[in-house]
Every structure is written in structure tokens, then in C-alpha cells.
């Protein structure tokens, strides 16, 4: 394929041509994707498919939440099922015990989970790598224990029942009318926009700098402890909101075993398979990992073996994840910046492409 504007694939590589092509028509692509996503509930899908699509959107959001921690600052958490559970229980209990409606409960669940993230972030400051992962794994188990044992608040193993469905101005959201999907779509899009806003700011650059070289980041005057905790807080907030949403889509019922360690593994698999540090990767990872068991249902137990082998192969041969490529597009400058550079005789067109030396 030879394209006048993007050069040939042989000269510039597939990624370069693909990215520049996509970038040139991104308005069009986003519009098409947007229309498709909004149209999902009107496609006359059966309940199972609608639930699957809703879960993919939910896990995209969970992936984005964990991605702030793992993809941006490089802190690996195996305890996100803990945050997920705290968010879900907070949202459910606020409704069932205190009679609050869904929306304030959801917001409070996010805030509460963020506070727990702050508390967990503090002692983990001195830990990194495997040690941090072990502590977060322990956190997940502690949450599990608290949910099971603190019966006077959490109903213990019995679980929280009769969680009402979300309502807004008399409209009840449920699975059949696509309401659940609409809520999670809105939440996931807001999360993606928020994550990108953070990533393309001094906060995001500080996160990435800490991931690359913490000592060098310190030497640039970055208060690394503060940013590592901030990443925990943001990550917990997003995960808590996702948990709050999950509590209402489960036939009005949640129990502690909904938030076991396996869920942590699934969330981190989404992040790693999809592509660390990217939003597109989270959506892709969630779709792949949730579709996989459905598509290969005929293989019964064997699908988990294949699933495991795939993960190992992935880690070995493509550790950056399926869509975790380094962009070949130039660094994104605002229109205002381009204008000012132009005025100083530093036309952005003279700056090289991102292909490297």
C-alpha cells in the first residue's frame, strides 16, 4: 500500500502509516465508534450478550483504574479486588442500610475507596516491586476477611440483598433496557477522558518519570512519595466507582466471594495483555479476556489452560501488551504552543517525527 500522505509501509513501517492515517481521520473514527457504542442497547441483543458487553465496559474501567498505578507509576497491585469490593459494599450498604439513592451512594463509594487507597498507599511507600505486590495481595485478603466477619455491618457470608436498581427522574436502569450499559459506558468514557487529562499534564509526566527512574525523578524536585500516593488514590477512586456500579447489576445481590483474588488477577491481566499505560489497551484487554471464555466454551476446562499459556507467551514475547506500542506521532502540542513556536522561528514542522534518531 502506498499512500501519498503517509508514505509506504515498507519505508516507514506499518505502525507509522497506521497511526498517521488514524490521526488524520480521527474525528471520523471517533464519531463512528461513538455512534456504535451508543447504539448497542438498540441492537436487539439477547440478555447474555448485553451482559457481556456491559461487563467488558466495566472491566475496561477497572483496567483504566489499575493502569494509573501499574501503567503510569509502575507500582504493581494484586489487591484491586479489595478496592473493587470496598466500592461495591460501600455503595450497596449506603443504599440498603441508610436508604440513600444510587447516585450519591456511588459518589460516596468512590470517595471512601479513595480514602482507603490513601491509607494503603502510606505504608507501601517504602516498598516496590514484588514486596509491594505481596502487601497488596494481603490487603485483598484482609478486605475479604472483613467483609465475611463484620456481620453487623456487611451481613457476612450471607451477602447484601435487595440492592435497588438505579433510577433517574423516574426512569429505572436495568439490564434489559440497556440502562446498565448506558451507565457504565458513561462512567468508562469519563474515566478515559480523566486518565488522558492526567497523563498529559505535569502529574502524568511525574508518574511516568517515577516509573522510569525514581532517583532521577527525585533529582528533578518531584515529591515522589506524594505522587505515588496520589496514584493509589486515583486508582482506588476509579476502582471504587466501578465496584459501586457492579453492586447494582448483580440481581440486587453481592457477597464477599465476588471480590476474591481471582478478580485481582483478571484485572491485572486486562492491563498487561491490553498494553500498559494506554487506554485503548484496557478496552482491548477487557474485550479479549472476557470474550475468550465465552467463545471457547466448548473446550470446557481446557480453556483455562489455553488462557494461561497465552498469558505466559504474552509476557515472554510482547511484554508491552498487545496494543502497548510507542507512538510514532509527534509529541502533541496545543495550537497555542504551535503558534508561539512559529512566532519564535521554531516551526513545529522542523521538529522531527517521533521515530527516533
Amino acid at each position: 500500500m502506498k499512500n501519498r500522505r503517509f508514505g509506504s509501509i515498507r519505508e516507514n513501517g506499518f505502525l507509522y502509516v497506521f497511526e498517521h492515517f488514524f490521526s488524520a481521520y480521527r474525528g471520523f473514527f471517533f464519531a463512528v465508534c461513538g455512534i456504535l457504542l451508543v447504539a448497542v442497547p438498540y441492537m436487539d441483543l439477547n440478555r447474555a450478550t448485553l451482559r457481556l458487553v456491559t461487563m467488558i465496559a466495566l472491566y475496561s474501567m477497572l483496567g483504566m483504574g489499575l493502569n494509573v498505578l501499574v501503567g503510569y507509576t509502575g507500582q504493581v497491585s494484586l489487591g484491586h479486588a479489595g478496592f473493587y469490593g470496598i466500592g461495591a459494599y460501600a455503595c450497596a450498604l449506603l443504599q440498603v442500610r441508610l436508604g440513600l439513592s444510587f447516585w450519591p451512594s456511588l459518589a460516596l463509594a468512590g470517595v471512601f475507596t479513595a480514602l482507603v487507597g490513601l491509607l494503603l498507599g502510606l505504608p507501601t511507600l517504602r516498598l516496590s516491586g514484588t514486596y509491594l505486590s505481596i502487601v497488596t495481595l494481603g490487603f485483598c485478603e484482609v478486605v475479604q476477611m472483613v467483609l465475611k466477619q463484620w456481620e453487623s455491618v456487611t451481613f457476612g457470608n450471607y451477602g447484601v440483598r435487595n440492592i435497588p436498581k438505579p433510577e433517574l427522574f423516574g426512569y429505572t436502569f436495568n439490564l434489559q433496557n440497556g440502562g446498565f450499559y448506558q451507565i457504565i459506558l458513561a462512567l468508562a468514557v469519563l474515566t478515559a477522558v480523566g486518565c488522558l487529562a492526567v497523563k498529559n499534564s505535569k502529574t502524568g509526566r511525574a508518574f511516568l518519570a517515577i516509573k522510569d527512574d525514581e532517583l532521577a525523578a527525585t533529582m528533578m524536585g518531584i515529591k515522589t512519595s506524594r505522587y505515588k500516593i496520589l496514584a493509589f488514590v486515583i486508582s482506588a477512586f476509579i476502582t471504587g466507582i466501578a465496584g459501586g456500579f457492579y453492586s447494582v447489576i448483580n440481581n440486587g445481590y453481592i457477597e464477599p466471594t465476588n471480590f476474591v483474588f481471582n478478580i485481582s488477577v483478571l484485572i491485572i491481566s486486562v492491563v498487561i495483555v491490553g498494553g500498559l499505560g494506554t487506554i485503548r489497551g484496557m478496552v482491548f484487554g477487557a474485550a479479549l479476556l472476557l470474550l475468550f471464555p465465552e467463545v471457547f466454551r466448548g473446550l470446557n476446562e481446557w480453556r483455562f489452560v489455553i488462557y494461561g499459556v497465552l498469558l505466559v507467551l504474552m509476557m515472554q514475547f510482547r511484554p508491552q501488551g498487545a496494543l502497548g506500542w510507542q507512538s510514532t506521532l509527534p509529541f502533541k502540542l496545543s495550537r497555542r504552543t504551535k503558534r508561539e513556536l512559529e512566532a519564535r522561528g521554531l516551526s513545529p514542522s522542523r521538529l522531527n517525527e517521533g521515530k527516533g534518531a
Partner: protein
Amino acid sequence: MGFLNVENITMQFGGLRAVDNVSFHVDQGEIVSLIGPNGAGKTTVFNMLTGVYRITGGTMEFLGTALVDKMPQDIVKLGIARTFQNLRLFSKMRVIENVLVGMHINTRYRFFSSLFRTALFRREESEKAVRAVEILKSIGLLKHVNSYAESLPYGEQRKVEIARAMATDAKLLLLDEPAAGMNPAETEELLRFIRQLRDEGYTILLIEHDMNVVMNISDRIYVLDHGRLIADGLPEEIANNRDVVDAYLGGERKKHAED
């Protein structure tokens, strides 16, 4: 009030005294070199100045402010920035992003500003990006603005480190072997650039092995050996100093001379 005054600093690691009672000073607008054989304690001095190590004795003052027991982040804010002997770039980030990270402490918006893209955020981001491109232009990296740091040749990566240090708005630059891994032509260009930095108002404290560089560029030189200061003076004085020659060539020469 002196620019940088260091008095009797000592760094003890268990039984090892890496830096022993060293005193020196740097005046504004100078290029001062710190030389000495491997393991003499030069980089340790940098780590002490920048707050990486908590010193075990002595005093350090920069523009009248005591540096002892300050956090590294606060020392950067006072105006001391450094480069590293073994490159420590943010290798997965672009060159311009590396420089923007250097501007972190001078970027004056807060978290929620970036979330809501306020006017302050847009103005600051734009100003810093323009400044970053200007710094990169001054150091000859204009053609690498968008490149990923890890994709650059070694010599160019060293320049990115200097650019990143400049971006912190430092008054004093600590350069740890900036010419390491550069070919003679690149070294020549680096010398020109360091002089240019001085002319722009930066003060420079340099660790260097390449004698060609040191003798060419330094206003004054301090020589460290086994953690002790063994000589200081003008380049020509140092070149003819017996102790210094001994330290570099080993003590044997002295013995032979005495025989």
C-alpha cells in the same frame, strides 16, 4: 555571602570514610572541576550536595542557605541541579517530555487544573513547552525534540540530561562526567556549550576524567584522592603538582624518585 561554601564535609559508610573532611567553594559564574582517580569520592560529593546522602559531618551552604538535612527536592528548588555519571534519563519518555519533567517544580498549576483544563493549565503548559524547545535548540537537540530518549546516541543522551537540569531553572549545575562516551568532536562541542552556559549565567561544578576537558575549561580545580582533598588551584598549577601526578599514576613514582 558566598555562592557555594562547603566546609569539612565527611561521609562515613560503616568503616569506610568515602569523603574525609573536604572543604571547597564555588563562586558565581565559575567553572570549577573536581578531579581524582576512580573511587576518590567525587560522585559521593555530588550525592552529598544534592541530598541523596545524609552527610555525617561538616556544613554546606548555597546562597546563604544550609543544605545539610534538606530533602533533595528542596535542594533542587534552591537552584542546584545535576546530571548523572551513568545516564539516568527517563528513557521511555520523549526528549521534550524529559525536559518538561525538569520543569516540574516551576510548573505552577495543581492537579484539578489539569483535570479541568483551566486557563492557567493551558497557559503554563504552552509556556513550558516553548521554553523546553528553546532549551533543546540551545543545546543542539532541535531535531530530536520528539524522539524517545532511549533511541538517541550516547552523546546526545548526555545532552538531554544537561537540558533537563537546565530546565529546573538551576543556578548551579553539577555535571558528572559529561564528556564520558563522547568522541573528540562531540567533546569539543560540549566544551563550547559549557562555556556558553557559563556566559548565560550558570555556574558549573564538573566531575571529569578527560584531562583535556578539565585543563581546557576550568577556572579552578580541586583534586580528591581516597576521599581527601590533596590539591587545589589553577589548571596549570594542578598539572605540575607532584601529589596529583602521584595520585593518578600511583605512589610508585615517588618511591622510585627517592631511590
